[in-house]
Protein backbone atom coordinates (compact mmCIF):
# COMPACT_ATOMS: atom_id res chain seq x y z
CA UNK A 1 0.00 0.00 0.00
CA UNK A 2 1.74 3.18 -1.15
CA UNK A 3 2.62 5.63 1.56
CA UNK A 4 0.09 8.45 2.00
CA UNK A 5 1.28 12.04 1.64
CA UNK A 6 0.87 14.43 4.57
CA UNK A 7 0.32 18.09 3.77
CA UNK A 8 -1.43 21.13 5.23
CA UNK A 9 -4.27 23.09 3.68
CA UNK A 10 -4.95 26.41 5.44
CA UNK A 11 -3.17 25.03 8.44
CA UNK A 12 -5.25 21.84 8.52
CA UNK A 13 -3.29 18.58 8.26
CA UNK A 14 -4.56 16.02 5.78
CA UNK A 15 -3.27 12.81 4.21
CA UNK A 16 -3.79 11.93 0.55
CA UNK A 17 -2.80 9.05 -1.72
CA UNK A 18 0.18 9.66 -4.02
CA UNK A 19 -0.85 11.04 -7.37
CA UNK A 20 -3.40 13.38 -5.83
CA UNK A 21 -3.36 16.86 -7.29
CA UNK A 22 -3.36 19.83 -4.91
CA UNK A 23 -6.80 20.90 -6.15
CA UNK A 24 -8.28 17.60 -4.98
CA UNK A 25 -6.45 17.95 -1.65
CA UNK A 26 -7.96 21.39 -1.10
CA UNK A 27 -11.38 19.87 -1.65
CA UNK A 28 -10.62 16.94 0.64
CA UNK A 29 -9.68 19.45 3.33
CA UNK A 30 -13.22 20.80 3.07
CA UNK A 31 -12.48 24.02 1.19
CA UNK A 32 -14.66 24.91 -1.76
CA UNK A 33 -13.18 28.38 -2.29
CA UNK A 34 -9.75 28.47 -3.87
CA UNK A 35 -9.40 32.14 -4.67
CA UNK A 36 -11.31 35.39 -4.58
CA UNK A 37 -11.92 37.09 -7.91
CA UNK A 38 -11.20 40.74 -8.60
CA UNK A 39 -14.76 41.65 -7.63
CA UNK A 40 -14.78 39.41 -4.57
CA UNK A 41 -16.45 36.25 -5.87
CA UNK A 42 -15.40 32.85 -4.57
CA UNK A 43 -13.78 30.73 -7.28
CA UNK A 44 -12.74 27.12 -7.69
CA UNK A 45 -11.31 24.95 -10.50
CA UNK A 46 -13.08 25.13 -13.86
CA UNK A 47 -11.03 23.54 -16.63
CA UNK A 48 -9.04 20.93 -14.72
CA UNK A 49 -6.21 21.19 -17.24
CA UNK A 50 -4.20 24.22 -16.20
CA UNK A 51 -5.47 26.95 -18.47
CA UNK A 52 -8.26 28.81 -16.64
CA UNK A 53 -6.18 29.90 -13.60
CA UNK A 54 -9.23 29.70 -11.33
CA UNK A 55 -7.64 27.04 -9.14
CA UNK A 56 -4.73 29.23 -8.06
CA UNK A 57 -3.51 28.85 -4.52
CA UNK A 58 -0.35 29.74 -2.63
CA UNK A 59 2.00 26.78 -2.16
CA UNK A 60 4.92 27.09 0.26
CA UNK A 61 4.62 30.85 0.13
CA UNK A 62 4.59 31.17 -3.66
CA UNK A 63 1.46 32.79 -5.11
CA UNK A 64 -0.53 31.99 -8.25
CA UNK A 65 0.17 28.23 -8.33
CA UNK A 66 -2.27 26.24 -10.47
CA UNK A 67 -3.37 23.53 -8.05
CA UNK A 68 -4.91 21.26 -10.69
CA UNK A 69 -1.53 20.77 -12.34
CA UNK A 70 0.58 20.08 -9.27
CA UNK A 71 0.88 16.77 -7.47
CA UNK A 72 0.85 16.85 -3.69
CA UNK A 73 4.27 16.56 -2.06
CA UNK A 74 5.05 15.73 1.57
CA UNK A 75 4.93 18.70 3.97
CA UNK A 76 3.44 21.03 1.37
CA UNK A 77 1.78 24.14 2.84
CA UNK A 78 -1.21 25.12 0.77
CA UNK A 79 -3.13 28.33 1.38
CA UNK A 80 -6.27 29.42 -0.40
CA UNK A 81 -7.57 32.99 -0.52
CA UNK A 82 -9.91 31.91 2.23
CA UNK A 83 -6.99 30.93 4.46
Amino acid sequence: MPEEIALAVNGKEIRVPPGTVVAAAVNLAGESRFRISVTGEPRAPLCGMGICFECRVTIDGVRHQRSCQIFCRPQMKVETDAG
Partner: protein
Amino acid sequence: MPAERAYEVLVIGAGPAGIAAACCASESGGHVGVLDDNPAPGGQIWRGESARPKNPEAARWLRRIRETPVSIECGAQVVSQPAPGVLFVESEGRLREIEYKKLIVATGARERFLPFPGWTLPNVMGAGGLQALVKGGLPIAGKKVVIAGTGPLLLAVGEYLHRHGARVELIAEQAPMRRLIPFGAGLLSEPAKTLQALKLKWELRSVPYVTGCWPVSAQGKGKLDTVTLRSAKKTWQQPCDYLACGFGLVPNIELASLLGCETRNGAVKVDQWQQTSVPGVYAAGEATGVGGLDLSLVEGRIAGYAAAGKTADAETLLGARGRALRFQQAMEHAFSLREELKQLPDAGSLVCRCEDVPFRKLQTHQSWRAAKLQTRCGMGPCQGRICGPAVEFLFGWQFGSVRPPIFPTSFSDAAGRREPGAGSA
Protein backbone atom coordinates in the same frame (compact mmCIF):
# COMPACT_ATOMS: atom_id res chain seq x y z
CA MET B 1 25.34 26.40 -19.48
CA PRO B 2 25.78 23.08 -21.30
CA ALA B 3 23.84 23.01 -24.56
CA GLU B 4 21.07 20.46 -24.69
CA ARG B 5 21.32 18.10 -27.64
CA ALA B 6 19.16 19.24 -30.53
CA TYR B 7 16.21 16.99 -31.35
CA GLU B 8 15.72 15.49 -34.80
CA VAL B 9 12.02 15.60 -34.06
CA LEU B 10 10.51 17.45 -31.12
CA VAL B 11 6.86 16.83 -30.28
CA ILE B 12 4.87 19.33 -28.22
CA GLY B 13 2.04 17.54 -26.41
CA ALA B 14 1.98 14.05 -24.90
CA GLY B 15 -1.63 13.24 -25.65
CA PRO B 16 -2.57 10.47 -28.09
CA ALA B 17 -1.44 12.39 -31.19
CA GLY B 18 1.87 13.39 -29.66
CA ILE B 19 2.61 9.93 -28.32
CA ALA B 20 1.77 8.30 -31.65
CA ALA B 21 3.89 10.88 -33.49
CA ALA B 22 6.87 10.35 -31.23
CA CYS B 23 6.68 6.55 -31.50
CA CYS B 24 6.59 6.64 -35.29
CA ALA B 25 9.26 9.34 -35.60
CA SER B 26 11.49 7.32 -33.34
CA GLU B 27 11.41 4.33 -35.67
CA SER B 28 14.00 6.05 -37.86
CA GLY B 29 16.42 6.11 -34.98
CA GLY B 30 16.85 9.87 -34.61
CA HIS B 31 16.80 11.76 -31.31
CA VAL B 32 13.12 12.32 -30.56
CA GLY B 33 11.62 14.15 -27.60
CA VAL B 34 8.18 15.04 -26.27
CA LEU B 35 7.30 18.01 -24.06
CA ASP B 36 4.01 18.37 -22.20
CA ASP B 37 2.80 20.97 -19.73
CA ASN B 38 0.69 18.54 -17.69
CA PRO B 39 2.25 16.69 -14.76
CA ALA B 40 2.02 13.30 -16.53
CA PRO B 41 1.67 12.06 -20.14
CA GLY B 42 -1.68 11.14 -21.71
CA GLY B 43 -3.10 14.57 -22.54
CA GLN B 44 -6.74 14.96 -21.56
CA ILE B 45 -8.38 11.78 -22.81
CA TRP B 46 -5.70 9.48 -21.34
CA ARG B 47 -5.15 11.52 -18.17
CA GLY B 48 -4.14 9.24 -15.31
CA GLU B 49 -3.50 6.27 -17.60
CA SER B 50 0.26 6.33 -17.18
CA ALA B 51 -0.05 5.88 -13.42
CA ARG B 52 -3.11 3.63 -13.34
CA PRO B 53 -3.73 1.98 -16.73
CA LYS B 54 -7.42 1.27 -17.36
CA ASN B 55 -7.88 1.74 -21.09
CA PRO B 56 -6.21 -1.04 -23.16
CA GLU B 57 -5.46 1.20 -26.15
CA ALA B 58 -3.92 3.88 -23.92
CA ALA B 59 -1.91 1.25 -22.08
CA ARG B 60 -0.56 -0.11 -25.38
CA TRP B 61 0.62 3.26 -26.62
CA LEU B 62 2.06 4.33 -23.29
CA ARG B 63 3.93 1.04 -23.00
CA ARG B 64 5.17 1.42 -26.56
CA ILE B 65 6.57 4.86 -25.98
CA ARG B 66 8.20 3.79 -22.74
CA GLU B 67 9.99 1.08 -24.71
CA THR B 68 11.39 3.56 -27.24
CA PRO B 69 14.38 5.85 -26.65
CA VAL B 70 12.01 8.88 -26.85
CA SER B 71 12.57 11.30 -23.98
CA ILE B 72 9.32 12.56 -22.45
CA GLU B 73 9.37 15.61 -20.26
CA CYS B 74 6.27 16.65 -18.33
CA GLY B 75 5.59 19.89 -16.57
CA ALA B 76 7.34 21.66 -19.44
CA GLN B 77 5.74 24.75 -20.98
CA VAL B 78 6.77 26.29 -24.27
CA VAL B 79 7.04 30.03 -23.71
CA SER B 80 8.32 31.54 -26.93
CA GLN B 81 10.49 31.04 -30.00
CA PRO B 82 13.65 33.14 -29.90
CA ALA B 83 14.81 31.96 -33.35
CA PRO B 84 13.70 29.41 -35.97
CA GLY B 85 14.54 25.92 -34.79
CA VAL B 86 14.72 26.96 -31.12
CA LEU B 87 12.13 27.11 -28.36
CA PHE B 88 12.25 28.65 -24.91
CA VAL B 89 10.78 26.10 -22.53
CA GLU B 90 10.03 26.68 -18.86
CA SER B 91 10.09 23.76 -16.45
CA GLU B 92 10.81 23.43 -12.74
CA GLY B 93 11.32 27.15 -12.45
CA ARG B 94 14.05 27.22 -15.08
CA LEU B 95 14.12 28.37 -18.66
CA ARG B 96 15.94 26.35 -21.30
CA GLU B 97 16.64 26.70 -24.95
CA ILE B 98 15.68 23.58 -26.86
CA GLU B 99 16.73 23.12 -30.47
CA TYR B 100 14.99 20.95 -33.02
CA LYS B 101 15.16 20.13 -36.69
CA LYS B 102 11.52 19.19 -37.07
CA LEU B 103 8.66 20.12 -34.77
CA ILE B 104 5.30 18.41 -34.35
CA VAL B 105 2.62 20.50 -32.68
CA ALA B 106 0.19 18.19 -30.89
CA THR B 107 -1.25 20.69 -28.46
CA GLY B 108 -4.76 19.23 -28.42
CA ALA B 109 -7.93 21.08 -27.59
CA ARG B 110 -9.70 22.64 -24.64
CA GLU B 111 -13.34 22.91 -23.65
CA ARG B 112 -15.50 25.76 -24.83
CA PHE B 113 -17.23 27.52 -21.95
CA LEU B 114 -20.33 29.64 -22.47
CA PRO B 115 -21.38 32.06 -19.75
CA PHE B 116 -24.73 31.85 -18.02
CA PRO B 117 -25.94 33.22 -14.67
CA GLY B 118 -24.12 31.50 -11.82
CA TRP B 119 -21.52 29.71 -13.94
CA THR B 120 -18.68 31.11 -11.84
CA LEU B 121 -19.86 29.34 -8.67
CA PRO B 122 -17.44 26.83 -7.16
CA ASN B 123 -18.29 23.29 -8.33
CA VAL B 124 -19.43 24.42 -11.77
CA MET B 125 -16.71 22.94 -13.96
CA GLY B 126 -16.05 21.75 -17.45
CA ALA B 127 -17.16 18.24 -18.29
CA GLY B 128 -13.59 17.20 -18.99
CA GLY B 129 -12.65 19.50 -16.14
CA LEU B 130 -14.55 17.52 -13.52
CA GLN B 131 -13.29 14.25 -14.94
CA ALA B 132 -9.71 15.53 -14.80
CA LEU B 133 -10.11 16.50 -11.17
CA VAL B 134 -11.64 13.16 -10.25
CA LYS B 135 -8.71 11.46 -11.96
CA GLY B 136 -6.54 13.69 -9.79
CA GLY B 137 -8.12 12.38 -6.62
CA LEU B 138 -11.31 14.42 -6.13
CA PRO B 139 -13.81 12.16 -4.31
CA ILE B 140 -16.99 11.83 -6.39
CA ALA B 141 -18.67 8.72 -4.97
CA GLY B 142 -22.18 9.54 -3.84
CA LYS B 143 -22.04 13.07 -5.18
CA LYS B 144 -24.90 14.31 -7.38
CA VAL B 145 -23.64 15.42 -10.77
CA VAL B 146 -25.44 17.08 -13.66
CA ILE B 147 -23.59 16.88 -16.98
CA ALA B 148 -24.47 19.45 -19.63
CA GLY B 149 -23.30 21.12 -22.81
CA THR B 150 -22.56 19.25 -26.00
CA GLY B 151 -20.60 16.47 -27.60
CA PRO B 152 -19.64 12.83 -27.19
CA LEU B 153 -17.43 13.97 -24.32
CA LEU B 154 -20.53 14.32 -22.12
CA LEU B 155 -21.25 10.62 -22.43
CA ALA B 156 -17.63 9.63 -21.86
CA VAL B 157 -17.52 11.79 -18.74
CA GLY B 158 -20.90 10.48 -17.58
CA GLU B 159 -19.75 6.91 -17.96
CA TYR B 160 -16.49 7.55 -16.12
CA LEU B 161 -18.12 9.37 -13.21
CA HIS B 162 -20.88 6.79 -12.93
CA ARG B 163 -18.33 3.99 -12.80
CA HIS B 164 -16.61 5.82 -9.96
CA GLY B 165 -19.74 5.99 -7.90
CA ALA B 166 -21.12 9.41 -8.76
CA ARG B 167 -24.88 9.88 -8.88
CA VAL B 168 -25.16 11.19 -12.43
CA GLU B 169 -28.60 12.80 -12.35
CA LEU B 170 -28.84 13.44 -16.06
CA ILE B 171 -26.93 14.38 -19.16
CA ALA B 172 -28.29 17.47 -20.92
CA GLU B 173 -27.20 17.65 -24.57
CA GLN B 174 -28.03 20.93 -26.35
CA ALA B 175 -28.17 19.29 -29.80
CA PRO B 176 -31.65 18.29 -30.90
CA MET B 177 -32.48 14.60 -31.29
CA ARG B 178 -33.06 15.05 -35.01
CA ARG B 179 -29.34 15.82 -35.47
CA LEU B 180 -28.14 13.12 -33.13
CA ILE B 181 -30.00 10.25 -34.76
CA PRO B 182 -28.08 10.45 -38.05
CA PHE B 183 -24.86 10.76 -36.06
CA GLY B 184 -25.72 7.64 -34.12
CA ALA B 185 -26.66 5.83 -37.31
CA GLY B 186 -23.34 6.85 -38.85
CA LEU B 187 -21.50 5.09 -36.06
CA LEU B 188 -22.99 1.78 -37.18
CA SER B 189 -20.56 1.72 -40.11
CA GLU B 190 -17.71 1.37 -37.62
CA PRO B 191 -18.08 -1.72 -35.45
CA ALA B 192 -15.59 -0.51 -32.86
CA LYS B 193 -17.48 2.72 -32.44
CA THR B 194 -20.83 0.95 -32.27
CA LEU B 195 -19.51 -1.31 -29.54
CA GLN B 196 -18.14 1.68 -27.66
CA ALA B 197 -21.48 3.47 -27.92
CA LEU B 198 -23.38 0.43 -26.71
CA LYS B 199 -21.03 0.05 -23.74
CA LEU B 200 -21.62 3.67 -22.84
CA LYS B 201 -25.32 3.30 -23.21
CA TRP B 202 -25.33 0.23 -20.98
CA GLU B 203 -23.30 1.89 -18.22
CA LEU B 204 -25.57 4.89 -18.38
CA ARG B 205 -28.84 2.98 -18.73
CA SER B 206 -30.21 4.56 -15.58
CA VAL B 207 -29.14 8.07 -16.47
CA PRO B 208 -31.55 10.25 -18.47
CA TYR B 209 -29.99 11.64 -21.64
CA VAL B 210 -32.07 14.69 -22.47
CA THR B 211 -31.55 16.27 -25.86
CA GLY B 212 -32.42 19.81 -26.84
CA CYS B 213 -31.68 20.71 -23.25
CA TRP B 214 -29.24 23.11 -21.64
CA PRO B 215 -28.52 24.88 -18.34
CA VAL B 216 -29.98 28.35 -17.94
CA SER B 217 -28.59 29.14 -14.52
CA ALA B 218 -26.67 27.79 -11.57
CA GLN B 219 -27.47 28.73 -8.00
CA GLY B 220 -25.96 28.32 -4.59
CA LYS B 221 -24.57 30.17 -1.59
CA GLY B 222 -20.81 30.26 -1.96
CA LYS B 223 -20.95 27.08 -4.04
CA LEU B 224 -23.31 25.25 -6.38
CA ASP B 225 -26.43 23.56 -5.05
CA THR B 226 -28.94 23.74 -7.90
CA VAL B 227 -28.96 23.94 -11.70
CA THR B 228 -31.92 25.24 -13.68
CA LEU B 229 -32.30 23.35 -16.93
CA ARG B 230 -34.48 24.04 -19.94
CA SER B 231 -35.76 21.71 -22.62
CA ALA B 232 -38.49 22.05 -25.22
CA LYS B 233 -41.00 20.59 -22.77
CA LYS B 234 -40.12 22.31 -19.53
CA THR B 235 -37.79 24.30 -17.30
CA TRP B 236 -36.91 22.78 -13.95
CA GLN B 237 -34.50 22.95 -11.04
CA GLN B 238 -32.11 20.10 -10.41
CA PRO B 239 -30.30 19.97 -7.06
CA CYS B 240 -26.72 18.77 -7.46
CA ASP B 241 -23.22 18.93 -6.01
CA TYR B 242 -21.38 19.40 -9.32
CA LEU B 243 -22.28 20.73 -12.74
CA ALA B 244 -19.94 19.35 -15.39
CA CYS B 245 -20.61 21.62 -18.34
CA GLY B 246 -18.70 22.07 -21.60
CA PHE B 247 -19.93 23.22 -24.99
CA GLY B 248 -17.63 21.35 -27.30
CA LEU B 249 -13.89 21.53 -27.87
CA VAL B 250 -11.68 24.27 -29.30
CA PRO B 251 -8.23 23.56 -30.80
CA ASN B 252 -5.22 24.94 -28.89
CA ILE B 253 -3.55 26.89 -31.67
CA GLU B 254 -1.52 29.40 -29.66
CA LEU B 255 1.84 27.72 -30.18
CA ALA B 256 1.21 27.10 -33.87
CA SER B 257 0.15 30.74 -34.29
CA LEU B 258 3.24 31.95 -32.49
CA LEU B 259 5.36 29.91 -34.89
CA GLY B 260 3.61 31.57 -37.82
CA CYS B 261 1.50 28.61 -38.95
CA GLU B 262 -1.59 29.42 -40.96
CA THR B 263 -4.86 28.58 -39.30
CA ARG B 264 -8.34 28.09 -40.71
CA ASN B 265 -11.62 28.05 -38.78
CA GLY B 266 -9.66 28.18 -35.55
CA ALA B 267 -7.54 25.11 -36.34
CA VAL B 268 -4.01 24.66 -37.67
CA LYS B 269 -3.97 24.19 -41.44
CA VAL B 270 -2.05 21.11 -42.59
CA ASP B 271 -1.43 19.28 -45.86
CA GLN B 272 -1.76 15.54 -46.43
CA TRP B 273 1.53 14.93 -44.58
CA GLN B 274 0.34 16.97 -41.59
CA GLN B 275 2.81 19.68 -42.59
CA THR B 276 1.84 23.24 -41.63
CA SER B 277 2.56 26.38 -43.66
CA VAL B 278 5.88 26.71 -41.83
CA PRO B 279 8.59 24.44 -43.25
CA GLY B 280 9.70 21.81 -40.76
CA VAL B 281 6.66 22.30 -38.52
CA TYR B 282 3.96 19.65 -38.47
CA ALA B 283 0.71 19.46 -36.55
CA ALA B 284 -1.45 16.52 -35.56
CA GLY B 285 -4.46 15.75 -33.43
CA GLU B 286 -7.17 18.03 -32.12
CA ALA B 287 -5.07 21.13 -32.80
CA THR B 288 -5.73 20.60 -36.51
CA GLY B 289 -9.46 20.22 -35.91
CA VAL B 290 -11.42 18.42 -33.24
CA GLY B 291 -12.10 14.95 -34.58
CA GLY B 292 -11.76 12.41 -31.80
CA LEU B 293 -9.25 9.85 -30.68
CA ASP B 294 -8.95 7.72 -33.82
CA LEU B 295 -8.23 10.73 -35.99
CA SER B 296 -5.68 12.03 -33.48
CA LEU B 297 -3.83 8.72 -33.46
CA VAL B 298 -3.66 8.36 -37.22
CA GLU B 299 -2.66 12.01 -37.71
CA GLY B 300 0.03 11.60 -35.09
CA ARG B 301 1.42 8.56 -36.85
CA ILE B 302 1.42 10.30 -40.24
CA ALA B 303 3.15 13.37 -38.76
CA GLY B 304 5.73 11.23 -36.99
CA TYR B 305 6.64 9.32 -40.14
CA ALA B 306 6.56 12.42 -42.33
CA ALA B 307 8.77 14.42 -39.95
CA ALA B 308 11.26 11.57 -39.91
CA GLY B 309 11.26 11.45 -43.69
CA LYS B 310 9.41 8.12 -43.97
CA THR B 311 6.74 9.18 -46.45
CA ALA B 312 6.09 5.63 -47.60
CA ASP B 313 5.00 4.63 -44.10
CA ALA B 314 2.94 7.79 -43.81
CA GLU B 315 1.25 7.05 -47.10
CA THR B 316 -0.16 3.74 -45.85
CA LEU B 317 -2.19 5.64 -43.27
CA LEU B 318 -3.89 8.14 -45.54
CA GLY B 319 -6.92 5.89 -46.03
CA ALA B 320 -7.42 5.45 -42.30
CA ARG B 321 -7.26 9.18 -41.85
CA GLY B 322 -9.84 9.72 -44.56
CA ARG B 323 -12.25 7.44 -42.71
CA ALA B 324 -11.56 9.15 -39.40
CA LEU B 325 -12.11 12.56 -40.99
CA ARG B 326 -15.65 11.52 -41.88
CA PHE B 327 -16.32 11.02 -38.17
CA GLN B 328 -14.97 14.52 -37.55
CA GLN B 329 -17.36 16.02 -40.07
CA ALA B 330 -20.29 14.06 -38.66
CA MET B 331 -19.44 15.27 -35.16
CA GLU B 332 -19.20 18.89 -36.23
CA HIS B 333 -22.61 18.75 -37.81
CA ALA B 334 -24.38 16.84 -35.07
CA PHE B 335 -23.10 18.92 -32.18
CA SER B 336 -23.04 22.43 -33.63
CA LEU B 337 -24.16 25.04 -31.15
CA ARG B 338 -27.70 26.28 -31.42
CA GLU B 339 -28.54 29.96 -31.62
CA GLU B 340 -30.53 29.95 -28.37
CA LEU B 341 -27.27 29.56 -26.47
CA LYS B 342 -26.40 33.14 -27.43
CA GLN B 343 -29.20 34.17 -25.06
CA LEU B 344 -27.71 32.29 -22.13
CA PRO B 345 -25.83 35.14 -20.45
CA ASP B 346 -27.79 37.90 -18.76
CA ALA B 347 -26.45 41.44 -18.45
CA GLY B 348 -24.48 40.65 -15.33
CA SER B 349 -23.13 37.23 -16.31
CA LEU B 350 -19.35 37.38 -16.26
CA VAL B 351 -17.81 36.60 -19.60
CA CYS B 352 -14.18 37.16 -18.59
CA ARG B 353 -13.52 35.41 -15.30
CA CYS B 354 -9.97 36.66 -14.91
CA GLU B 355 -11.03 40.30 -14.94
CA ASP B 356 -14.71 39.90 -13.95
CA VAL B 357 -16.09 41.56 -17.08
CA PRO B 358 -19.89 41.23 -17.37
CA PHE B 359 -21.76 40.63 -20.62
CA ARG B 360 -23.37 44.08 -20.65
CA LYS B 361 -19.96 45.78 -20.74
CA LEU B 362 -18.99 43.87 -23.87
CA GLN B 363 -22.21 44.54 -25.72
CA THR B 364 -21.38 48.21 -26.35
CA HIS B 365 -18.29 47.45 -28.44
CA GLN B 366 -17.80 46.71 -32.12
CA SER B 367 -14.66 44.64 -32.07
CA TRP B 368 -12.62 42.34 -29.88
CA ARG B 369 -9.81 44.87 -29.66
CA ALA B 370 -12.07 47.72 -28.57
CA ALA B 371 -13.79 45.46 -26.03
CA LYS B 372 -10.46 44.25 -24.67
CA LEU B 373 -8.95 47.72 -24.28
CA GLN B 374 -12.02 49.26 -22.71
CA THR B 375 -13.09 46.40 -20.41
CA ARG B 376 -9.90 44.38 -19.86
CA CYS B 377 -11.65 41.26 -21.15
CA GLY B 378 -8.95 38.79 -22.20
CA MET B 379 -6.16 40.60 -20.37
CA GLY B 380 -5.90 38.15 -17.52
CA PRO B 381 -3.69 35.12 -16.91
CA CYS B 382 -5.75 32.77 -19.07
CA GLN B 383 -4.79 35.05 -21.96
CA GLY B 384 -8.27 34.77 -23.39
CA ARG B 385 -8.37 30.97 -23.57
CA ILE B 386 -11.61 30.82 -21.58
CA CYS B 387 -13.40 33.97 -22.71
CA GLY B 388 -12.13 33.99 -26.30
CA PRO B 389 -14.25 31.10 -27.64
CA ALA B 390 -17.28 32.44 -25.75
CA VAL B 391 -16.83 35.91 -27.17
CA GLU B 392 -16.39 34.48 -30.64
CA PHE B 393 -19.67 32.55 -30.34
CA LEU B 394 -21.61 35.40 -28.74
CA PHE B 395 -20.38 38.29 -30.88
CA GLY B 396 -18.63 36.72 -33.86
CA TRP B 397 -15.38 38.49 -32.96
CA GLN B 398 -12.14 36.88 -34.04
CA PHE B 399 -9.61 36.59 -31.28
CA GLY B 400 -6.52 38.77 -31.79
CA SER B 401 -2.91 38.03 -32.59
CA VAL B 402 -0.71 35.85 -30.41
CA ARG B 403 2.39 37.30 -28.77
CA PRO B 404 4.95 35.76 -26.45
CA PRO B 405 4.76 34.53 -23.80
CA ILE B 406 2.05 32.15 -24.97
CA PHE B 407 1.63 31.14 -21.39
CA PRO B 408 2.26 33.14 -18.23
CA THR B 409 5.84 32.70 -17.27
CA SER B 410 8.14 34.06 -14.63
CA PHE B 411 9.67 37.46 -15.30
CA SER B 412 13.20 36.12 -15.04
CA ASP B 413 12.42 33.39 -17.57
CA ALA B 414 10.78 35.82 -19.96
CA ALA B 415 13.89 37.97 -19.59
CA GLY B 416 15.88 35.08 -20.95
CA ARG B 417 17.68 34.45 -17.73
CA ARG B 418 18.83 30.89 -18.05
CA GLU B 419 20.97 30.39 -14.98
CA PRO B 420 19.48 27.67 -12.79
CA GLY B 421 17.93 29.06 -9.67
CA ALA B 422 17.73 32.64 -10.94
CA GLY B 423 14.32 33.84 -9.89
CA SER B 424 12.95 30.33 -9.59
CA ALA B 425 9.49 30.26 -8.05
